[in-house]
């Protein structure tokens, strides 16, 4: 953990370019921040290389079911899905880890697909969903928080009740209900037609359920900013609402929004995996770490690696994002707190 401790006054003061540069400098000097960033970079690079592993090294297709596939082990051709021949002859077991990058490094899943290749592709999906939905959450949350906090009155009341509604609607219930509807038929709004297996659906669902996490603290921050002298002064000088929002308010809450992004990414990745565990997230044959864990749970007793590997990757990545988020928080806005105080 960083040793940087808040010596700031409770509410953020007006900022100039200075604090940004200072914050970045502090981050670069923080070994925790640098380490987590490097770890994340490594994970991203390895996951981006998924097609290289699948296509050029293991020669496998991570999405095509390969029930009749075979692989070479010690010079012997072996079926990837093996029929149990002992006892009553019940059951078919996929091969376990070969620890050989030539194919089935982590073994096969029940469709005969290479788990390691799926792990890499799954990482791309999980990271993409986590990051995109985190950015979307922060942007949407910032907009809602800004408008509600700044304009107040009826606008605030309506937006706040909407946030209450999403907040009180139990997270998984909301996600499950939305998923059941959306995943059955996809989403059709006018000319936009999103197929049920489109990644946009889980992204939208996760974004929606976590908007209050970001919007509420930001609304509070805007509310307190509004009472501060420099905003009152701008209003007194006759500046337009949008100008004040953009020049003064947004600039002041931006550090908080930036702090939220890595923290929300970690949270959203975990949520994605939980939704996939309940088989309402990413749809097959697409892979994400959550769906691989879910596939792996069906093989937990015979082939635990299938569920353990993506779980460990998920934990490492989420830890790295959380550590990075903490460091960014220390550097930019030590007071920033997500709803739920994470």
């Amino acid at each position, binding site marked *: 953990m960083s040793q940087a401790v808040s010596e700031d006054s409770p509410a953020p003061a007006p900022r100039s370019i200075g604090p940004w540069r200072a914050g970045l400098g502090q981050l670069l000097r923080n070994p925790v921040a640098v380490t987590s960033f490097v770890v994340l970079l490594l994970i991203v690079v390895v996951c981006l290389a998924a097609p290289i592993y699948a296509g050029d090294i293991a020669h496998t297709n991570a999405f095509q*079911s390969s029930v009749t596939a075979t692989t070479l082990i010690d010079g012997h051709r072996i079926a990837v899905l093996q029929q*149990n021949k002992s006892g*009553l002859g*019940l059951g078919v077991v996929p091969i376990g880890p070969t620890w050989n990058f030539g194919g089935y490094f982590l073994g096969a899943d*029940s*469709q005969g697909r290479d788990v390691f290749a799926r792990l890499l592709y799954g990482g791309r999906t999980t990271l993409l969903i986590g990051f995109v939905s985190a950015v979307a959450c922060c942007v949407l949350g910032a907009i809602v928080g800004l408008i509600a906090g700044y304009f107040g009155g009826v606008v605030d009341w309506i937006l706040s009740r909407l946030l209450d509604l999403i907040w009180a609607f139990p997270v998984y219930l909301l996600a499950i209900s939305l998923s059941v509807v959306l995943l*059955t038929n996809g989403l059709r709004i006018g000319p936009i037609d999103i197929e049920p297996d489109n990644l946009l659906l889980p992204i939208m669902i996760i974004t929606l359920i976590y908007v209050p996490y970001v919007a509420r603290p930001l609304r509070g921050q805007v509310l307190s900013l509004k009472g501060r002298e420099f905003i009152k002064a701008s209003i007194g000088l006759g500046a337009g609402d949008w100008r004040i929002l953009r020049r003064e308010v947004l600039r002041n809450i931006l550090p908080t929004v930036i702090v939220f992004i890595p923290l929300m990414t970690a949270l959203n990745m975990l949520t994605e995996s939980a939704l996939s565990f309940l088989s309402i997230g990413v749809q097959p*044959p697409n892979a994400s770490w959550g769906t691989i864990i879910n596939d792996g749970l069906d093989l*937990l007793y015979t082939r635990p690696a299938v569920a353990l590997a993506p779980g460990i990757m998920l934990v490492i990545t989420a830890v790295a994002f959380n550590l990075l988020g903490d460091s960014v928080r220390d550097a930019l806005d030590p007071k920033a707190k997500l709803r739920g105080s994470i």
Partner: protein
Amino acid sequence: MRKAKKFLLPIVAAISLVALAACTSSGSTPSGGSTSNAGAAHAGGTLHLVAASAGGTLDPQVNYTLQYWQLYQGAYDGLVTYARVGGSHSEDIVPDLATALPKVSSDGKTYTFTLRKGIKFSSGKTVTTADVVASFQRLFKVSSPNAGSWYNVIVGADACLKTPGSCTLDGGVVADAGTNQITFNLTQPDPEFEAQLAMPFASIIPAGTAAKDLGTSPIPTTGPYYFASYAPTKALVMKRNTYFKSWSADAAPVGYPDEIDETFGLTAEAEVTAVENGQADWMYDTPPSDRLVEISNKYSSQAHVNPLTAMWYLALNTNIAPFNNQDARQAINWAVDRSSIVKLYGGTSLAQPACTILPPNFPGHVNTCAYTKGGGSTWKAPDLTKAKALVAASGTAGQSIGVVVQNDSVNEGIGLYMVSLLNQLGYKATLKPLSDNIQYNYIQNTGNHVQLSLTQWYQDYPAASDFLQVLLSCASFHKGSDSSINIAGYCNKDLDAQMTAADTQGVTDQKAANTAWGSIDKAYMAESPLVPLFTPKLVDFTSSKVKNYQFSAQYYMLVDQVWLK
């Protein structure tokens, strides 16, 4: 070996009942004790069954699940029943509450039964002909699932279907309290009427039972057990019916356990562990594939594998593209690698590739295979070349296809295989997994535009029409309805007429009719509205305590014939 032993006990006492159980059961169970004392020694104990979830309403006239039909065998009786014994004899219809099988008039429209005397409900009331008439009226009043598809041949049924509230079945079910006779008058001959009377829907329950689905409140029984309590989130408890005296070894054998409980809520995974550790005696659900090897190797003496008369199949919607094209439909039948699908289901010991709609060992089944590489009467390998040629000929390549499956791992696994295969054939396939509970009705409704779906059909009773007529007749297809069991939406007037003819022939000559059904099966396969995948086998996993396991083709493990001692 259809003998109805009648032991009339002067005193109703549990102990003497138990002794009786031994005598009566020894006739039908060769593996059982050969002396009456051996049987008595096996009575007693509580049988613990586990299931992931409850099977819905407990009302025997409404429930349509194998889960409870299996338990009804030790609880409810109809006029006739499928023999409650293991082995091939289990597909024979035997008299139950009736003294003998019905006298059928020469035109096949009148069935006459004589009710046994002295049988009592678990409430203590004696079973009379009035109860029989009331039970059949109630069948319509509670909207029994097959009221309109099976029992509509009874005179007066049409009026009952229109206005169930005032259902009398006047002239349809006629009772004569003096002679204890009940006569059924039908509007047309029906070779399956006897089988339909043997189904749990036609159980005889007390007259005066409320004319609505009683759900969780148990209805008095006539069999060896009654339902003592039922809470769908917790457990179902069956206890000995003290008014029960066995009247037939085949139809109403005395049960062995003193009590039978089925608890709900464990996952299949946890059920396996519970049975292994002896905390439960039997699991209702299919053991998850992850645990099969363990069961097969470490617990082989506790696992029982039996073939089912059932079919896993793909339904191709013949009314919309691409499967309104026969070449495209046949291409799927050629292309599907049944051995891959068998692997996904759990291996060769659990399933057998299927080529026909009627499963093996089923009336009318003929060993033939229209779609296998190299030809022959059994399936050997897929023929992708032929399939690709047919897709090309159909001009449907490049179209998108949604594959609608249930979202459990086995169904989804097969769905994924299908998506890969369809893509290989040049289509753009996507998988649409739906909750088990809605998929079946979803794929039936034409409004949902389902093109290809994976589903299963398990027999109600052993008759070819229970597969072919139910799944493919024009009458089973209802546009825009959630209840349209002809999922392929296939209606062929010519074959429909052939089925009606075979049905009629069955009244007089069942053997010739079965031959006709065999060729109808073949004709449908040529049109390819369905793609039969495999015939599943059932794994029953029992605890080490359980002895005298017997399998009935009709209702599977005979729960109340199990020995715990």
